[in-house]
């Protein structure tokens, strides 16, 4: 199946004009499948970490949102044990005018500002709300242990 123009354009731009702190490289066998890394944003407990993600563009992309998940273990209230991400733009608020680039930026922003009120990993969110200091400490530890 030939690759839609939209995907070619986006890939070209991701390579020629990359977002600082984010890389996205398409797989050789499957150009709809991307290996992604996101650097932990400075000022967040994930600072200094390099997080691997996988991203897949479904057949109906861009009418459907890309599928993204973390491959690196991460302690975050909106990311569960399997690396699935709870983010509005990946679900109900997806629009075909959004791009891989904008989605990855949103994920990076999610690392800077966790939202324990809309949790995916309940225990993490619980900890985040009851003892934020401790939660941030754990997140930092995990970053050092898993995201180097």
């Amino acid at each position, binding site marked *: 199946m030939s690759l839609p123009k939209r995907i*070619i354009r986006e890939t070209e731009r991701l390579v020629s004009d990359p977002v600082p702190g984010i890389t996205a490289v398409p797989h050789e066998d499957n150009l709809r499948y991307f290996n992604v890394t996101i650097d932990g944003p400075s000022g967040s407990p994930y600072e200094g970490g390099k997080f691997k993600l996988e991203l897949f563009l479904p057949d109906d992309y861009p009418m459907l949102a890309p599928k993204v998940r973390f491959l690196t273990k991460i302690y975050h209230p909106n990311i569960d044990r399997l690396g699935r991400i709870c983010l509005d733009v990946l679900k109900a608020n997806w629009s075909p005018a959004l791009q891989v680039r904008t989605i990855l930026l949103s994920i990076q922003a999610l690392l800077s500002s966790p939202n324990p009120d809309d949790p995916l990993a309940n225990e993490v969110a619980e900890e985040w709300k009851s003892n934020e200091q401790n939660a941030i400490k754990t997140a930092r530890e995990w970053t050092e242990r898993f995201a180097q």
Partner: protein
Amino acid sequence: MSASEFEYESEEEYASSVSFDELEALSLTDSVHYTHKNRQTANGLSTHRMRYKPVEADEIEGQLKAHIRDVDSILQIGEDDCAVLMLKYEWNEQKLLEDFTTKEPGNLRRECGLATDTGVVSGLVETAGPEFMCAICCSEGPVETFRLSWCDHRYCVDCYVRYVRGSQTGLVKCPDTACRLYVRPGELAQLSAIDEQRALQKEEQERQEQRQNLGGPLTSEQIMAKYQKVASESSDEEDAESEDGEESTDDALFNFHERHIRQQRLEKQERRNKVLLSRYWYAVVLQYTKKHARTFRNCPAVDCECFIEYRGFDSDVISSVEEYVAHKYIPIVQCANGHRFCFACTSEDHAPATCAVVRKWIQTCADETETSHWITANTKDCPKCSSPIEKNGGCNHMTCGECHYQFCWICLGDWSRHKNNFVCTSFDDEEAKKEREKQETSRVSLKKYLFYFDLFEIHRVSLKKDTEFLAKLEYKVQEIQQRAKVSWIEAHFYRESIDTLLRCRITLMWSYALMFYLESSKEKGMLEKTQSNLSNHVEALSKLFEITPTENVIKKKEMFLTKANALKTSHEKCIEIFMESLVLNRIKFVSDIE
């Protein structure tokens, strides 16, 4: 309403004896249906009937549009904006009017995804130049584009159409995430129109290409050759079919019939799906009916797009569906396509079983508890290691396969006590007694369950087979009817007989499920008699359908009519008798149903 109520001496007397209120009620009855036919059962029990009206999606669509117009006559903001507001407020007119008067108009409009500008706009559809690139598909101009009235986010028409089509609700935002505007029906109508026009153009283009491939108009010789080719091909097919004998012809006919029905449905759906605007309104209707789930039910049959509108009760006592069900009535309704289902639980027709019985029955059938029932009834546990053991023959001297413990199957005592004597001597042993009693009770309830389950299954399977078999035959009869030049109405009895038969099978099926939960009593005995009476009538009519060759079916019309009528009467009576028993609480349920 029975005919006698309309027997007036003269027109004048009739007219003068009816008050305005009554007139209104009368005009209602034209379109309103009842969950059951009579106000009183044959035994004089007055029943409470639920009123309902089968409606189709376009009727509701019309009502909603009228509703929007009404609200707009107050708000005066234009029907398009009003439609978005109503959708946003989930048809809560009062809340909308309240907010409209209290909130700052600009804020309200912004919150609801409406532009603060108003007025007439044009140029939603525009051909963009080569500098344009669609942000969705990245194709470059010149290309036809679409935008909403009050924003400047242009996308190519194809993308816009695909985008709107992909959304399941009536509230579709402009694809640009920073723009909060909703697509309004009027704008959608423009997009829909251009989409249709393009589809037509495409078709025309394809036709032209085909013609070009053929190289200009055909000469009469070419047409003749083409015709002969097609004719010989189809006669080949016919030969191949007729060689396979009776059975496969039946199948072919059945398949044809099936295909025909399916095609009709598909065509209808396709038409709705094709036109963007009607798709949009269907989504709006669905949102509305879901919001008003107390009044509307979507027919649960596959691919059926009909609705049932609840119209209250023919009763002073009952005023809600919940109450109705609590009184053990069963609100079975019939949609415009003839599908019968329960308004309360939206499962298919399940009279005379109440909704509670149906829930319980389905759960019982699905539950593993019955499997364990079987295990307790048919196996005994090894007294030592507790492995379940099924005795599949041989003597009572059992040796456990797991722990090799030897025991007596009858008293479950150690076999060493039986060594010199094969007659079990410890019959009165306390342990053994308990064990036996436990197994006895579980065996009785298992047998009862299996008994009713078998009956239920038999009818369920028959129902399925009958539906297939009769659909085949029906098509055949239609064919015969055409060949014998019998009018449609003459052969209509056949369709009716099928319907009656299928309906009665459903009733029988569920009556067995109900029976399982009833305590034995005189009343239950009476219900069983009614049931077996209905069952006999069903069998009698069912037998008629075995008539071969099918040509004889038309000749046997009288017989069909007699049997079907007898069945119908028996069915009505059966439903009534069950209803009386249930509603008057004359019959007791086993404790765990309520």
